């Protein structure tokens, strides 16, 4: 209604008060009935008939008559008031509008519409009301999109925007599900405007401009920024992470939840693992308070399953109210230690220390000479032994120096001063481990195809992981026998982490979740790859493993549970889109809709005639109804 009114103008608004006359007219029509007292009503009922034929038509005619009278009155009043459509005339400059369609424009405003819809509506009103010579409208998405091509036809531009608005209100068109590149859209709009002489670029956004200095200083094209939306009642996840505890049996969840609301808000944080609620906590958010940190350890469900954390209740921006991750089952790998003359005591001690972290009953020890006949386990540790030819079979292996021949990598001459001076700090195997302080008398450099260096000494790799011929391995070229490594925490932690890493990968080759905008990198080559189909709620994408980084790109906008299917293999993970910098809080006041445009000179007269004719038509129709009624219809 408000949009309709905005598209119309009235030359004498005071006369619109006469529309109130519809109230007494309607009341008189509805309630002023002639009352006749009769001796015996059933007599009339019988005369009218049991089914009262024509009763429905009589009521309809009655209501129709009232409607016609009211319409006639309304048309008469509007004609006298000078109702006419608002139309602006042409102006001297071109107008290029940029409507922000960032993910944050999905925020629901107080009128129930999304900020995106409000932005489109504001654009439509500007196009309808303001004076311009030529107009174009862009949407700021991940890639800017021209939604109204440059045109001088006001009606066509309006109609196009109205259609888009209808689609957006009907849910057939929406904002981006990821961050939109507002800067790119502004640059595109500027280029579009410059090609059209004097022009103005209007950006309709609640966000701060990413490139203010470039544009605001330039005289042409003029840059005008108009605010859209006022909603700021948002509570949501800003960080989310999962990690295994040192023992490997439990999962450590770290998250942070923030409120941008201007008032105190209370929301329940609920976390479910495998369908069972493991945490419910009421969070009180004070305005302006720092994010609420959540940290908890829990045992993953036996068969694995989904981890779901969400904020109960509602706010203006639901997309950040929930995060999801796929939990692998708890891991108890079996281990086979391959030794020469006996297991070295520190190796045994490491396994003993893992306790329930490994499947003791399935684990065992074997001489290197008997390895060919031994049943392989989840992980094999070659404890400084020389393997006989042909004993190495596909599986997960840990090689501890000294290193013999016949291994899936090449072993170089011992390093003179095996002082570890460089390691990969972000790699899960060596993160937080310090080998630099260890005293090591002997170290073997390793190299080979597919070997990833994790630590180097004297310029050569002494710790690495890789895969060749189905043998996945972690190799430590530093000899514990001739060092103080067994006395240091880094060594047992490395072995434990290597066991878990090698054992876990086949069970859960995908991470519990991947971040939006990041890469989906499997932990090992997936069978049936490198192509895969990614399917999530609301979308599907065919992905091809990028050979350079061995990862798929997380499709833009994908969020929630994802099924990854190669030829012959299907797995699950989740896409999580949390961003501490993302907020729906507008940085500027929402712009008021522009006032109605000037009226064309011939508009009122034509409309007045049309309205008077309509009033006359309504009265004639009412008269026809009266005549029909008096004839006994």
């Amino acid at each position: 209604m408000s949009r309709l009114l905005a598209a119309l103008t009235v030359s004498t608004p005071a006369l619109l008060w006469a529309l109130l006359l519809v109230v007494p007219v309607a009341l008189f029509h509805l309630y002023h009935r002639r009352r006749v007292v009769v001796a015996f009503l059933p007599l009339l009922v019988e005369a009218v008939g049991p089914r009262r034929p024509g009763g429905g038509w009589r009521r309809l005619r009655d209501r129709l008559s009232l409607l016609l009278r009211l319409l006639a009155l309304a048309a008469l009043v509007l004609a006298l008031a000078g109702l006419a459509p608002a139309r602006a005339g042409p102006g001297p400059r071109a107008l290029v509008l940029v409507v922000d369609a960032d993910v944050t424009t999905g925020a629901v405003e107080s009128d129930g519409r999304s900020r995106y819809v409000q932005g489109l509506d504001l654009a439509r009103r500007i196009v309808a009301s303001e004076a311009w010579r030529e107009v174009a409208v862009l949407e700021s998405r991940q890639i800017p999109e021209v939604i109204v091509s440059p045109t001088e036809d006001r009606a066509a531009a309006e109609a196009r925007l109205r259609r888009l608005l209808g689609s957006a209100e009907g849910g057939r068109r929406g904002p981006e599900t990821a961050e939109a590149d507002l800067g790119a859209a502004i640059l595109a709009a500027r280029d579009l405007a410059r090609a059209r002489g004097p022009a103005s670029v209007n950006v309709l956004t609640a966000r701060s401009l990413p490139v203010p200095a470039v544009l605001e200083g330039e005289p042409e094209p003029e840059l005008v920024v108009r605010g859209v939306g006022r909603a700021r009642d948002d509570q949501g996840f800003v960080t989310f992470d999962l990690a295994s505890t040192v023992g490997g049996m439990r999962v450590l969840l770290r998250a942070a939840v923030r409120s941008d609301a201007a008032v105190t808000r209370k929301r329940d944080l609920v976390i479910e693992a495998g369908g069972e609620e493991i945490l419910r906590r009421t969070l009180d958010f004070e305005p302006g308070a720092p994010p609420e940190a959540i940290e908890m350890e829990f045992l993953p469900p036996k068969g694995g399953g989904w981890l779901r954390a969400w904020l109960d209740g509602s706010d203006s921006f639901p997309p950040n109210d929930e995060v999801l991750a796929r939990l692998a089952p708890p891991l108890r790998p079996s281990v086979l230690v391959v030794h020469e003359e006996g297991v070295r005591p520190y190796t045994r001690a490491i396994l003993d220390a893992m306790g329930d972290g490994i499947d003791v009953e399935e684990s065992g020890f074997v001489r290197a000479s008997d390895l060919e006949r031994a049943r392989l386990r989840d992980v094999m540790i070659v404890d400084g032994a020389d393997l006989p030819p042909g004993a190495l079979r596909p599986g997960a292996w840990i090689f501890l120096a000294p290193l013999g021949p016949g291994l899936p990598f090449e072993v170089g001459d011992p390093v003179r001063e095996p002082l570890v001076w460089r390691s990969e700090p972000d790699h899960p195997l060596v993160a937080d481990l310090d080998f630099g302080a260890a005293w090591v008398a002997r170290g073997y450099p390793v190299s080979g195809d597919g070997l990833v260096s994790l630590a180097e000494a004297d310029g050569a790799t002494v710790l690495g992981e890789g895969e060749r011929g189905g043998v996945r391995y972690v190799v430590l070229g530093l000899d514990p026998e001739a060092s103080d490594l067994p006395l240091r925490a880094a060594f047992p932690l490395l072995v434990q982490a290597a066991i878990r890493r090698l054992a876990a990968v086949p069970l859960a080759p995908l991470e519990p979740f991947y971040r939006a905008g990041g890469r989906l990198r499997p932990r090992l080559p997936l069978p049936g790859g490198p192509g895969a189909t990614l399917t999530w709620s609301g979308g599907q994408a065919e992905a091809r493993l990028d050979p350079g980084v061995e990862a798929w790109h997380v499709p833009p906008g994908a969020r929630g549970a994802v099924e990854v299917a190669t030829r012959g293999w299907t797995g699950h993970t989740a896409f999580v889109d949390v961003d501490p910098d993302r907020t729906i809080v507008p940085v500027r006041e929402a712009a008021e809709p522009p006032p109605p445009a000037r009226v064309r000179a011939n508009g009122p007269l034509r409309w007045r005639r049309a309205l008077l004719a309509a009033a006359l038509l309504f009265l004639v129709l009412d008269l026809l109804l009266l005549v029909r009624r008096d004839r006994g219809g």
Partner: protein
Amino acid sequence: MTEPLFTPQELARLERLRIRRRRTVHGEGRGEWRSQDHGQSGVFSEHRAYVAGDDLRYVDWNVYGRLGDVVVKRFEAELSRNVLLCIDRSLSMEGAKARVARRIAGALGYLALAHQDHARVAWLPGRPERPLTAYRSRARASLLLEEIRSVEDGGTTDHVRDLGRIVGALRGRGLAILISDFFDPQGAIRGLGLLRSRGLEVGAVHVTDPQDAELPLGTAVTAVDRETGERLALDVTPALQERVRRVWHARGHALERWCLAREIRYLHVDASRSLWDALRDLLRPREGAFG
């Protein structure tokens, strides 16, 4: 009603009227109505053979002299009869119909008492404090007329409900006259049927007012029932007016046919007609409704 039912001149005129018998009746006490019960009225009924113990005063000596048979004469008993006047006082009767109905009831009651009959007055709907009033002598005629005059109109019509209470309290048989417009939502004939089923000799005085079938032309009319307050929204067209009149006449004819088929004496009284015309029809010998 504030004015009296009858002026002195009208009462004098009533005196001159007589209710004639139409058939033998069942009654109680001595009166002016003939009965099939044999008694000592002096009106010869039949002979029968003498049996021991018969009163010798009733031996017909003329028969004995002519035929030699000893027979005794039997005489009809002369009884007074019960006349139950059921007067509709519901709101639908309000106006001309009520006045005519009460004047007819008053006339019938007066004449009944003049003939030494027992007159009882019952009101429909009934008065809880006094459902039935009995008058047994001509001297009480003024009281009867006063009651008929003074009871106010009111209530809704439900003949079965009201007559059920009345006939439940009645003993013996007699003549019951229902004076009403028969605007009973439950059905015009049910009350008459109830009276008849109790063995009463039944008469129906159907008081009508042509105004009941008249509606003013117009749209957006709400018809309100005078008794129940029920409403009906209508557009009153000439066609509807005609239909209402037809239905109104048809109801009267249907009631008359129903009564005739069951030997219920029926009299249609137009409220606009003279009382005396109606009484003449009522009391006309033989073919009169209550002659």
